[in-house]
């Protein structure tokens, strides 16, 4: 479904993503893991069509990332990106205007679940409320791929539970979910596959069940094995 070959993105002399080749398939929830600056966000932005690769290819269902893929891929950036004049309600109408798969009813339901109201001004939201709003907007789309960059950033425990429930409701055989987070234990409860990235390079893509059975390690322990010396 989402495939990249030798995907590279450089910023000056820094290689943020360095020759990544992988295929992500529908029916799975992927956890994209790696320390800060490992290239997760850059990879997602290229998959969302916001960033152009320096070299290599990235495609969705066999076609290069572009207008068509943007109508099928729902991306949530970790940074707030609303226009200053927007309210939660007008942000929903904006999505409705541009995305055929966006459901206003589903959006209102998600807002209600996350204790948000349509009259809230986006520029006055706390980081946690803004994160919940972004998630509600993204999950109100009936997309084929959901890419959520750090969905639990700045969110308290109870709100994280709400968000986890909402995300898991979208885990269906025909859909692909890709989430990045520093909260590895939290991700272990959601994901069934993990993508480990270090210094812009792909370390491995693992099926978590298979990894537990064959290697006898959890995702968190595997994370420690790979990045322990980097972060420690």
């Amino acid at each position, binding site marked *: 479904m989402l495939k990249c070959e030798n995907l590279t993105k450089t910023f000056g002399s820094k290689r943020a993503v360095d020759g990544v080749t992988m295929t992500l398939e529908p029916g799975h929830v992927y956890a994209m893991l790696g320390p800060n600056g490992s290239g997760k966000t850059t990879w997602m932005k290229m998959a*969302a*069509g*916001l960033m152009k690769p320096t070299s290599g290819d990235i495609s969705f269902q066999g076609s290069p990332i572009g207008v068509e893929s943007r109508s099928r891929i729902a*991306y949530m950036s970790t940074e707030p990106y609303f226009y200053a004049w927007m309210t939660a309600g007008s942000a929903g109408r904006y999505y409705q205007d541009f995305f055929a798969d966006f459901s206003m009813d589903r959006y209102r339901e998600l807002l209600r679940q996350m204790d948000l109201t349509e009259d809230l001004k986006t520029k006055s939201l706390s980081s946690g409320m803004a994160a919940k709003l972004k998630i509600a907007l993204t999950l109100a789309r009936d997309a084929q791929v959901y890419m959520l960059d750090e969905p639990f950033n700045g969110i308290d425990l109870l709100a994280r539970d709400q968000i986890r429930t909402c995300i898991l409701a979208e885990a269906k055989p025909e859909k692909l979910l890709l989430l990045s987070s520093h909260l590895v234990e939290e991700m272990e409860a959601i994901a069934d596959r993990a993508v480990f990235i270090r210094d812009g390079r792909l370390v491995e893509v693992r099926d978590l069940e298979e990894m537990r059975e064959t290697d006898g390690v959890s995702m968190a322990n595997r994370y420690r094995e790979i990045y322990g010396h980097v972060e420690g």
Partner: protein
Amino acid sequence: MKQLLKYEFRKTWIAKLIVLGITAAAEIAFLIGVALGDDNKTGAALIGTSVPLLVMIALFGVMFIGIQSVVVLHRDMNTKQGYMLYMTPRNSYQILGAKFLENGLSLVLSAAAFFLLGMLDVTLLFSRFGQLDQLWEMGKRMLEALNAEVELNTGTFLLLALSMLASWLGTVSVAYLADIVSSALLNGKKCNGLVSFLFFVLLSALMGWLQNLLRTPGMDFTAAMLVQAGVAVAYSAVMYFLSAYIMDHYLSV
């Protein structure tokens, strides 16, 4: 395209409200002045202040609207709010097309509104005070400075306004291209600002040179103004396609 256009208007409406607010204030002062009459000290002062102010607002208001659209484009390419635009299933030609269209329509509509307001105010002055010799002479001298054989009438004013508007549209589209080159091709490079500014100056000068080149010495005023406007519109079209191509292939937000 309709949706893109809707949000482009939404992004720039505050700038337009500012222009509208200042215009309304100046117009009210003018109307009060006319009502009081020029033999009244306050009335004469109000007319004397508001007339040049309205002329200035008409000129700079249209310029301000064009500059504001460049600022919005810059923000859309260089801040996180650009995600709202570039993650939508629309291509760069549509995104930029909406910006060009919004800017063009705003310029034409605001220029038309100022022109109508100007005509109404002149008519009002004429009907109230009966003589506009000084104003008429001033306009005549301004036009004669541009073309010795010009005849002063509404058509002349319209042609001149059209030519100026098209040239301004051309300048704004050059600014779009320079900004897109800066954000897409020169981003993070040394002297980005200076290089893109020089690029803007160079392309603007090129447009002026082309307008002069095609405006032959013997050409009458009407033909000269039409050529000037035509070159500017064609130049804007070239800038649009070039800008959209660069955006499509190289822009990362």
